[in-house]
């Protein structure tokens, strides 16, 4: 019984890190929506309304992509630290980051498709950025399947760390290869992009909106990570208590 009571948490007040982060996320995401839909001007050189509306998806698309790859980096770092320190914390961090990274990467692929349809008249193009996102998505799935197929917790943590490290190292090489593979890739942002189909120049307000959305998604990622880590820690504590009772 003592083990159970020590694992249970003291009642938390209304003001704590979790609620604070959740509130901050809500504020920045709503602000991001306002900036993306109302504040940011329509792209000057896009003619049809469909193209103009679809372009606004960029702000969240890029934000999600940034988090998707940043989460991968966090998994890589936790993998290295897990292998050197062997503590539950780093395993939990890597696992949490993959779950959340996968969610954002899925969002990247879906928003990318929605953006691509009116712009290039196709749901999917093998553009380097979209392709590397798809490969990253597959690596996340592989990571979760690997974990799911193992019972021994310490070995599962080790293997997950190793896979997180190897797959992250392959991302830049993958990106380089895919970029070279498509010699003509659609550059949608930048001065030269205006000439290409679907390309546009970014005004100062658009740039501000984009940067803010990247910031907002980072806050959102940190918030989700905080709650997911806490959940993982609680699950670990329950498992520990269960084992203590089973093997007393």
């Amino acid at each position, binding site marked *: 019984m003592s083990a159970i009571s020590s694992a249970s948490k003291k009642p938390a007040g209304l003001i704590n890190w979790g609620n604070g982060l959740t509130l901050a996320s809500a504020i920045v995401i709503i602000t991001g929506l306002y900036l993306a839909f109302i504040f940011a001007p329509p792209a000057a050189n896009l003619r049809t309304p469909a193209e103009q509306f679809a372009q606004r998806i960029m702000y969240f698309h890029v934000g999600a992509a940034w988090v998707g790859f940043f989460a991968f980096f966090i998994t890589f770092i936790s993998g290295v630290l897990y292998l050197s320190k062997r503590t539950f914390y780093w395993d939990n961090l890597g696992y949490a980051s993959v779950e959340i990274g996968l969610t954002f990467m899925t969002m990247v692929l879906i928003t990318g498709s929605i953006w691509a349809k009116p712009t290039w008249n196709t749901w999917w193009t093998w553009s380097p950025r979209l392709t590397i996102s798809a*490969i990253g998505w597959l690596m996340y799935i*592989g990571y979760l399947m690997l974990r799911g197929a193992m019972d021994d917790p310490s070995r599962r943590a080790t293997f997950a760390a*190793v896979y997180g490290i190897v797959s992250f190292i392959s991302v830049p090489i993958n990106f380089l290869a895919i970029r*070279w593979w498509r010699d003509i890739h659609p550059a949608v942002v930048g001065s030269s992009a205006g000439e290409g189909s679907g390309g546009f120049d970014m005004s100062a307000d658009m740039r501000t909106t984009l940067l803010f959305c990247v910031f907002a998604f980072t806050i959102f990622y940190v918030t989700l990570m905080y709650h997911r880590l806490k959940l993982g820690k609680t699950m670990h504590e329950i498992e520990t208590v269960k084992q203590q009772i089973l093997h007393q």
Partner: protein
Amino acid sequence: MPPQTDTKNQSAATMQPAGAAPVRSRYFYKILAIVYKDITAELRTKEMLSAMFVFSLLVIFIFNFTFDLRTDNAATLAPGVLWVAIAFAGMLGLGRSFIVERDRGSLEGLLLAPVDRSAIYFGKFLGNVIFISVVEVGILPLFIVFFNQPLAVVPALVGVVVLGTIGFAGVGTLFSAMVVHTRARDVLLPILLFPVVVPVLLSAVRLTAGILDALPLEDIQSWLGLLITFDVIFLAASFILFEYIVEE
């Protein structure tokens, strides 16, 4: 059984400290011992080699046949088909690589041996490279025949095939050692391996196409550089990480 007395009992009771030098000098010898052991075992049944060969043959045959319907010249698809065949056949071989060590616990036997764990990795890696290469030697002539290619391309093609196989088997051997400890076993291997080795496949296909089209070296040397870079980085990473995979 005839009870015999052991004649070498003088060394058994004591543990004289031995220097590190003789261990180091036997490192490569032990790598070769593992390779020799794997080849001897495979030559007794030839089960895996024949399965890999027939499978890659089927891939070449089926792809050639099915693409023929919608393509004027199936030869334009030749590089892709060759590498899909190699990758699929290689996957079969890699999957078996550690399963044969696991069934009778002989992986434990290897790990008990007084040698650095990396020697085990390199032994298994070399064995895999040799097995996949044997299959490649078998399918290259048939590839030339089916896709009607000149014989002059063979030497350069062999070079690309070797470099591609090293990259593929380097990560593949590491992951093969991982998946034998999972419930899904060889089903999981392609899911983990393919996203990571995309750069190998892309650069190998590009190089193969360049050779078949008789492009000058300058046009494809960046791909060659990418492939070699991948091989070096991932052999080094696997060399470091293998130790974590095999310990309990």
